[in-house]
């Protein structure tokens, strides 16, 4: 379980986060959506512990963060990039674990390639593999697919969903793509701007994920409802 209590954050005069309270159950996947500048990335960094706050954050010990730009080290090969976080966290059996991890995201055979030789989608899969090899209890994703082309994005959404089912981590996704949020989540958190606060939470009822769901009228209705709410909030 992740608990966020009375979190406020100011950057100088600007109130980035205003009294955020949120509980996320173990194994749940939630998405945070809102207009640019509503503080959703800031909130994710506060949860990660990368930005300090006066509020209270309760969370499991082991977590990982997936960044928008993949955040790979360009001088390391694919293999060495997967090993990076295990080196930092001083984990053993690095070779065996990285082999399995690369296999799980379909990057077997690319071990000796460098990041600049990979497509955007492959870089993001590598970034996911690098985090999930740590078996994190929670995973924070900061607009991971925003720089990925439309066709690759849908298959990566399925990939994230399948990894979530397999690894059973608690997921928090920040995105500006509403259908992506609805597709991946148990709940969608809606934030408004200046000051950044949570103004609504939408439960997503679907039990399965596939291409059929993307065209399901009930799915589209929820997407439209969230769009409407976000439009009316500012």
């Amino acid at each position: 379980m992740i608990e966020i209590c009375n979190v406020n954050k100011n950057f100088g005069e600007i109130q980035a986060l205003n009294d955020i309270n949120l509980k996320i159950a173990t194994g749940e996947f939630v998405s945070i959506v809102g207009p640019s500048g509503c503080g959703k990335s800031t909130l994710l960094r506060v949860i990660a512990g990368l930005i300090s706050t006066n509020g209270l954050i309760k969370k499991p010990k082991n977590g990982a963060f997936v960044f928008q730009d993949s955040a790979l080290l360009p001088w390391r090969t694919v293999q060495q990039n997967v090993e990076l976080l295990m080196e930092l966290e001083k984990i053993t059996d690095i070779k065996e674990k990285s082999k399995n991890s690369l296999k799980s995201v379909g990057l077997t055979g690319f071990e000796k390639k460098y990041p600049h030789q990979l497509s955007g989608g492959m870089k993001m899969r590598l970034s996911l593999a690098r985090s999930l090899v740590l078996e994190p209890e929670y995973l924070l994703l900061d607009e991971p697919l925003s720089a990925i082309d439309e066709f690759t994005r849908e298959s990566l959404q399925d990939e994230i969903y399948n990894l979530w089912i397999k690894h059973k981590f608690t997921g928090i996704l920040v995105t500006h793509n509403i259908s992506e949020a609805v597709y991946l989540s148990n709940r969608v958190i809606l934030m408004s701007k200046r000051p950044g606060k949570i103004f609504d939470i939408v439960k997503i009822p679907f039990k399965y994920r596939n291409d059929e769901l993307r065209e399901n009228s009930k799915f589209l209705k929820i997407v439209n409802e969230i769009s409407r709410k976000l439009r009316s909030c500012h």
Partner: protein
Amino acid sequence: MSLNKYLPPLSILFFFVLIWHVSAKTYDMQFLLPSPLSVFETFLNDFNIIINGGLITFREAFFGYLIAIIIGLITATIMSLSKIIEKSLYPYAILLQTVPIVAVAPLIVLWFGFEEKSVIIISIIISLFPIINNTLFGLKSTPETLLELFKMHKSNKFNCFFKLQFPYAIPNIITGLKISAGLSVIGAIVGEFIIGSGSTGGGLGVQIIYAQANLETSLVIALIFAATSLGFLFFSIISLIGYFLLHHWHESEKGIL
């Protein structure tokens, strides 16, 4: 491929030597403008003077360069780790660059004596700033997300520096080292000019002063070529190191060699 690559610079060299040769023949004043051929002859005849002087200058410039690299990397690293030290030291690092080294060189010779030590110190001073400046710039330009990634996974400062900041700075460090490669030889020659009269059988700078005094212009030119090749040698070694470190991943070194 190699023909396309080497043909343009080689043809420039050819035309340069040709114009030089024709001018030398036209004006026919050996002590002002010796022909390329007579410079080449001098090079063979006075090979001993050139090689001995070259070895001395090489030693001075090499140690000057090496010590400048060590001091430069350490200073830049300390400055990158502490804002307050950076703010206190950086203005004086700039002074290193703005001080006219030719004007300071006599003072250094006065302090440290008419010997190689002084030449090495002058070479260090002139080589230092580009190394500090470029290394510091590289160490400070690590992307925020990568720093966050390391922070997220409880990396200590040691890992953060050696696994992230330092490798990230290597392209900039190489740039600084390339600039300083030629400067270290310039520093050595300037130093030798000052101590010139005080020593016998000195380096290229000393030999240039002697040859000029004797109006041996072709020897002066041959010595200038030797000094230029020294700087070029340092530059090439650094370029090669840069290539091996960077060609896998950095744009600047892709497709070179």
